[in-house]
């Protein structure tokens, strides 16, 4: 299992397999529809939702525009509060820093708060290679780890699993990781939660190093913020002696006051709660309370490249609420794994090809993993125009063009496999530039319509495999118009 999911098939193939998996589709449909309806209710309670959304967009845009300045301010505040800041340009560097910090404590185990950033860089695997075991303590994340699985949702990583499957995983795998599941474990939620609680408690009480991400970092005070529902994260943040937080550089907000907006929009968008049950905030170190050492690893890993893109940079506003996943009809059918990235769904389809580039097959296919229905844009609490970015990235795939990779300006070549489509698009554009040619083509097609096959060749077969083609009319509209002067003459 790797955080970068190397060697994934392109989205269409991965999605096809998921569409055929009835259990998976059932689990996903049930989960996303439930949370979707709840979210709509929680959002409707706030009369000023539109203003909050706009405020969130502006705060993030402003911060991104002055990111260098706020990051320096953050570094100064964290240092002044007794923490240490480390800068990581990419996944390898971040993993090396964390491994070294853990080794310096002399420990070989860490407990983890659920964190997208550490999944993105494949931290658990990197630590494993150094002989350090990382224990996930978020319930859903635990299910994924025990099941030797990959997360398939930002907020509910085990959304693709039902209760019966979770019982099986606990009963068979817990023993290898620590305290075994109780005998006669049933699949009731209370039983499953209790098994996880007992298993995790031993971890919390033993661990001397905690690893977390953060939802926000406040530049003015150097404060980090994690919001969660279970309280397990808070245990990881307060019990260990050393706390290492790995956070993407875009998670910064300028002031404490800015949190006001996001602490309203994030929980309502993600779990449909008015406020999330646990909001943990920590600033450097404090004598005789909490961790004695605090390290903040600031992760770039493609973010400044994305920031250089005028259209695509809005993806960095994302607060990982996962509302876009829950409304996405494509995510609902394809499941999170098909996206081949820790960021699935609509946001994954625009973020991954920006962070990783469009060189691989999976990354080149992600901008097409959408029908552009716009539901994601509608729900996004920071107004990321996901369809706009998808189309922009499609352009990068089919036509190439200027981009920034690894901090350098490059001119990307079109991805392979689009030559025929490009030729067809150009031919169509030519015909549409010449109405006479278009009319001739329509007429020829109409006259030969009885000869047309009911199935299409080439890529069109994918269409006619599941849908019937429309039959061509005897006469295109433009000919009828000319013949009858718009119906004024005989029909």
């Amino acid at each position, binding site marked *: 299992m790797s955080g970068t999911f190397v060697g994934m098939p392109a989205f*269409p193939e991965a999605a096809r397999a998921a*569409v055929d998996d009835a259990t998976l*589709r059932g689990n996903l449909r049930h989960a996303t529809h439930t949370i979707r309806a709840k979210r709509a209710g929680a959002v409707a309670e706030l009369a000023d939702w539109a203003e909050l959304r706009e405020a969130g967009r502006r705060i993030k845009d402003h911060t991104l525009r002055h990111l260098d300045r706020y990051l320096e301010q953050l570094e100064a505040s964290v240092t002044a509060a007794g923490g240490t800041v480390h800068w990581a340009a990419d996944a390898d560097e971040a993993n090396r820093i964390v491994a070294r910090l853990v080794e310096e404590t002399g420990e070989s185990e860490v407990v983890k708060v659920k964190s997208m950033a550490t999944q993105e860089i494949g931290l658990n695997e990197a630590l494993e290679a150094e002989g350090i075991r990382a224990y996930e303590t978020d319930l859903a994340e635990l299910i994924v780890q025990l099941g030797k699985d990959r997360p398939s949702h930002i907020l509910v990583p085990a959304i693709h699993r039902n209760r019966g499957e979770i019982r099986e995983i606990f009963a068979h795998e817990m023993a290898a990781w620590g305290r075994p599941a109780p005998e006669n474990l049933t699949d009731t939620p209370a039983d499953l939660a209790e098994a996880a609680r007992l298993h995790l408690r031993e971890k919390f009480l033993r661990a001397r190093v905690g690893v977390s991400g953060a939802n926000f970092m406040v530049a003015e005070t150097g404060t980090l913020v994690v919001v969660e529902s279970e309280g397990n994260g808070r245990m990881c943040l307060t019990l260990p002696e050393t706390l290492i937080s790995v956070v993407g550089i875009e998670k910064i907000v300028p002031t404490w006051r800015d949190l006001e907006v996001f602490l309203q929009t994030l929980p309502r968008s993600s779990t449909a709660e008015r406020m999330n049950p646990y909001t943990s905030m920590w600033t450097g170190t404090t004598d005789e309370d909490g961790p004695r050492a605090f390290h903040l690893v600031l992760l770039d890993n493609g973010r400044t490249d994305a920031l250089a893109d005028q259209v695509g940079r809005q993806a960095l506003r994302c607060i990982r609420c996962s509302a876009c996943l829950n409304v996405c*009809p494509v995510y609902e059918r394809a499941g999170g794994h098909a996206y081949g990235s820790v960021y699935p769904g609509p946001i994954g389809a625009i973020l991954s090809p920006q962070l990783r580039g469009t060189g691989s097959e999976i990354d080149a296919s992600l901008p097409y993993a959408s029908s552009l229905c716009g539901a994601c844009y509608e729900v996004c609490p920071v107004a990321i125009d996901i369809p706009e970015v998808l189309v922009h990235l499609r352009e990068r795939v089919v036509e190439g063009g200027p981009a920034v990779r690894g901090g350098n300006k490059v001119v990307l070549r079109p991805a392979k496999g689009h030559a025929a489509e490009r030729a067809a698009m150009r031919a169509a*554009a030519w015909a549409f530039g010449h109405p006479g040619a278009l009319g001739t083509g329509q007429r020829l097609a109409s006259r030969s319509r009885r000869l047309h096959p009911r199935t299409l060749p080439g890529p069109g077969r*994918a269409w006619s495999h599941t849908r019937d*083609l429309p039959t061509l*009319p005897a006469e295109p509209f433009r000919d009828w118009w000319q013949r009858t002067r718009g119906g004024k003459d005989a029909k």
Partner: protein
Amino acid sequence: MRVALFLTCVNDTLYPETGKAVVRLLTRLGVEVDFPMGQTCCGQAHYNTGYRHEAEPLARRFAEVFGEYEAVVTPSGSCGAMVRELYPRMGERARAEGRGDSLARTVAPVVPKTYELTEFLVDVLGVTDVGAWYPHTVTYHPTCHGLRGLALGDRPRRLLEAVAGLDLVELPGAEECCGFGGTFAVKNAAVSAAMGTDKVRSAESTGAEVLCAADNSCLMHIGGTMTRLRAGIRPVHIAEILASTEEDPAL
């Protein structure tokens, strides 16, 4: 009032009956309709597939062909959204790329006067009862670009509710995409077909005879799925319902 019909390349080629219905309907409401022969395609398929540069000359052509009319009416939510929402954006992008103002200036005049059909009827003509007669049970599917791109809101429903004899029934999950999405239907055929199947099943569950929408592209996908699934319901464009009268009824 003299308006231009922008029929769209799909309707012109595959669904001329929709065009004829728009002409009948608008003429009945006292509007003089012209069909400029120079029209072709708005460039939506190009733009949405990533061929923005190929779409630019089509946007220019659109502006030239339709520039002189008081209003442009199109029976397609997605092509309407292309002109209104994306032409200005294309102009902006060209400017941001240092290619000057020419595209932005060329398209600017046609953008505000281009209307999707139901919008034109309700907002410009100020009618919701167009004098139609259509004695069937109908369910309405709001297409994504009409719903979210153009914010058509309840305009189509108000028009349908005023049709004599028509029984409008609620479509469960109406606002969910049918799965067409232009080239998406081919590039991600499995997901597209699964979405289409769900849409057809929920349309069937209403007991309606007809599923109506304001965009033939979505109806082509939904209709093709309906016949393949042998569903007991058929697709009809809203223009054909609104054009239908007791003297000259549509099927």
